[in-house]
């Protein structure tokens, strides 16, 4: 019975796949092609690892197979090849999608706790340590 259900599910998945199909158009020129200049490619790669895919939320665009992620990779590589600074490319995307799109969120009203939490915890830890050390001395 279980095997039958599994078979049906596999069958459905095969039948259903074309419905979710992507466009079938060729990938953008630099979606999966490295830049000829290794220095530029390294810059682009570092940036792509910290940009979040819009479709497969939670993946970096460097990791994603989604077509939009491929188009974003091509956009990043083309702009870096044109001499643009990686942070300018990031800013261009943040202007459109908000800090949502970057894995390196800026320090602002909604992220201050995130950035300051480690310091706050170290301070709390220092107080706790001081308290227990004092007790031990007595």
């Amino acid at each position: 019975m279980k095997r039958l259900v599994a078979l049906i599910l596999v069958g459905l998945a095969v039948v259903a796949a074309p419905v979710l199909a992507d466009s079938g158009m060729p990938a953008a020129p630099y979606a999966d092609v490295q830049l000829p200049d290794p220095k530029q490619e390294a810059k682009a790669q570092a940036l792509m690892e910290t940009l979040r895919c819009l479709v497969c939320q939670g993946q970096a665009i460097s990791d994603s197979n989604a077509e939009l992620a491929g188009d974003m990779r091509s956009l990043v590589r083309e702009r870096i090849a044109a001499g643009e600074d990686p942070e300018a490319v990031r800013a261009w995307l943040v202007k459109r999608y908000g800090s949502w799109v970057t894995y390196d969120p800026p320090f602002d009203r909604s992220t201050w706790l995130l950035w300051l939490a480690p310091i706050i915890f170290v301070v709390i830890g220092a107080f706790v340590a001081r308290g227990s050390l004092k007790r031990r001395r007595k």
Partner: protein
Amino acid sequence: MKRAVLLWAPLALFILLATFMVLKLRNPGDQTIPSKMVNTPVPEFALPAAADGLPGVSSAALAGKGPHLVNIFASWCVPCAAEAPQLKAIAEAGVPIVGIAIRDRRPDLAEFLGRYGNPFRAIGADDQSKVQLALGSSGVPESFVIDGKGVIRLQKIGPINPDDVASIIAAVQAAQ
């Protein structure tokens, strides 16, 4: 007494945090990513024509010619077919609709227009999603209301449902 509180506080904190996380995992809330380009001018672009007999789309053609509805769609996108009757109704109400076809093949697009009708005055071919990214759009279908000065006034994420038709027409009419 004080010691007991201190002893149990970490566990209580942990349970509180775990409850919060489980609740958020089960109900992650709104996953759409609204464009930050709303209320800013349309970025400059020019797209070639995607279909025979219809012109392409450019930002220059959108500014200064009254309000428009820009529909981001694709023939391979199932919800786009579902919103076709609504687009037809909006076009029949006199709203100029221009389409941006994302990664679409010419024959596929022609077939799509033949099957579901053509509400568009112009369709631009965005083969590498460049204009989609420039507009801050993250999927298909999406629609933008552009006012007479070329400023983006509204973004509708997802298909236009029958319930949305009246409010979209009103938004375009309000965006002189």
